[in-house]
């Protein structure tokens, strides 16, 4: 579709003129796109960060296999080999009951030192720490170990917490996706209506254009430009809100950073990428809306 620059200029001029002539409808559509994109932006920022935090936590998920106290060294060796032979397992690390004791004491801090007196009576088990290749497989692997393996006293992997985290994440993604799709279609519908009105206002002009041999693309372009403009205008405010809002939250989060495990995605490049995505969604909504409404009018 080779087009002369002069023609392109004409299409842009026409598109701008149309938007200006129907300024109230333009304003309404831009407002619709703005609302949609604002919600999309907030939602995406939330989902991406939840995902980020969740994957951080997921990566820390390990299965601790506590070895039966009665197991002898041979049996322990057998268990170790069986664990390493499991599918989807990334690593199996042995941790002796003495090491377990040390870890426990360290994690208890000052209190731990007091407990140090009881080191001789260490009640802990030897343990294998199993890490899954995919965090999602953790629960399945743990179940296999519980049911099929001998010499295992207990298996620990923060069952409920991991399970809930996965469930919550999945629900959040589905609900969010449905919400966004519904909003996007509303915005497309509003834009296509706006453009339909500018088309009706120019129906006679289109009829004559076709009569004198204008190609469909020649007729379509100004409306295409108009849709694009509506989409881009609608994305300005959401992007501005995104930048200021995220900056503010990011600053405050790092100020009260005792929740070390809750790390937000870093402002750069995340906000820039998200802004680009919002702009793209805006443009797609606009163009789609205009293409939809022009299609009907170009038959014959």
């Amino acid at each position, binding site marked *: 579709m080779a087009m*002369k620059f*002069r*023609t392109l200029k*004409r299409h842009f001029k026409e598109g701008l003129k149309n938007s200006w002539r129907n300024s109230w409808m333009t304003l309404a559509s831009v407002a619709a796109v703005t609302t949609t994109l604002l919600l999309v932006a907030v939602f995406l920022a939330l989902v991406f960060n939840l995902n980020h935090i969740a994957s951080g936590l997921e990566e820390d998920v390990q299965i601790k296999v506590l070895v039966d106290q009665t197991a002898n060294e041979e049996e322990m060796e057998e268990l170790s080999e069986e664990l390493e032979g499991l599918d989807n397992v990334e690593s199996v690390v042995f941790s002796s009951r003495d090491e377990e004791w040390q870890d426990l004491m360290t994690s208890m801090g000052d209190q731990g030192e007091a407990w140090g007196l009881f080191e001789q009576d260490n009640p802990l088990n030897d343990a294998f720490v199993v890490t899954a290749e995919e965090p999602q497989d953790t629960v399945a692997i743990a179940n296999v170990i519980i049911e099929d393996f001998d010499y295992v006293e207990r298996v620990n992997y923060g069952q409920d917490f991991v399970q809930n985290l996965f469930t919550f994440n999945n629900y959040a993604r589905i609900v969010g996706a449905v919400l966004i799709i519904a909003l996007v279609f509303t915005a497309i519908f509003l834009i296509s209506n706006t453009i339909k009105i500018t088309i009706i206002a120019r129906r*006679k*002009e289109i*009829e*004559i*254009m*076709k*009569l*004198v*041999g*204008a*190609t*469909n693309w*020649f007729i379509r372009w100004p409306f295409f430009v108009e849709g694009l403009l509506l989409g881009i205008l609608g994305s300005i405010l959401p992007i501005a809100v995104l930048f200021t809002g995220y900056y503010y939250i990011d600053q405050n989060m790092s100020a009260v950073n005792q929740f070390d495990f809750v790390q937000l995605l870093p402002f750069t490049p995340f906000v820039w990428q998200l802004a680009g995505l919002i702009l793209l969604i805006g443009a797609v909504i606009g163009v789609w809306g205009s293409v939809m409404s022009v299609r009907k009018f170009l038959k*014959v």
Partner: protein
Amino acid sequence: MIEMQQVKKTYPNGVTALNGIDINIDPGEFVYLVGQSGAGKSTFIKLIFREEIASSGQIRVNNRDLLEMKWKDVPLLRREIGVVYQDFKLLPKMTVYENVAFALEVVEESPRQIRKRVMEVLDQVGLKNKARFIPDELSGGEQQRVAIARAMANYPKLLIADEPTGNLDPDTSWEIMKILEEINGTGTTIIMATHSKEIVNTIKRRVIAVEGGLIVRDQHRGEYGYEV
């Protein structure tokens, strides 16, 4: 220029407008199309510039097969055909100059070429001095001349006029006929649908009479009338 064989047209609502048309129109001819309202004249005209597509048969216009034609080639066909209507179809907010230039902008002519050609065709219809007027400031006859100038801008080989004098008084009608004759004199084929007995019987040309979707008479230097 135009060949039709066994052309039939039935509209989606079941009305059969044309019921087997055979016709041959040579380049440079001037043809009157006569017949009652509803006889099929408008459909005949619309088939030629493919505003409607025939239900069956064969149509060739300027060596293009209209039934086999792809959508993207339709604009190319229309650039070879100028169309003039009874109600002029001018854009009211544009000047005379802009109305004519519009036809050339659409085919992406250069601004220099557009300027030159617009003044040329306006001169041809005698409206060079009214280029800056808007259609409402002109008489009916003048508006029709603008429409003719627009139709001629792309150097069409065929000019179709659908009752071009239908809204005009007799004196003005003769002015329009004079311009059409001049255009025909330069080699452009003209097909003109009309209800004017006076015009047909005075400026004698080929007459094609349509009645009930059929050609009932095709006569060179014929007279007005479409009774079987």
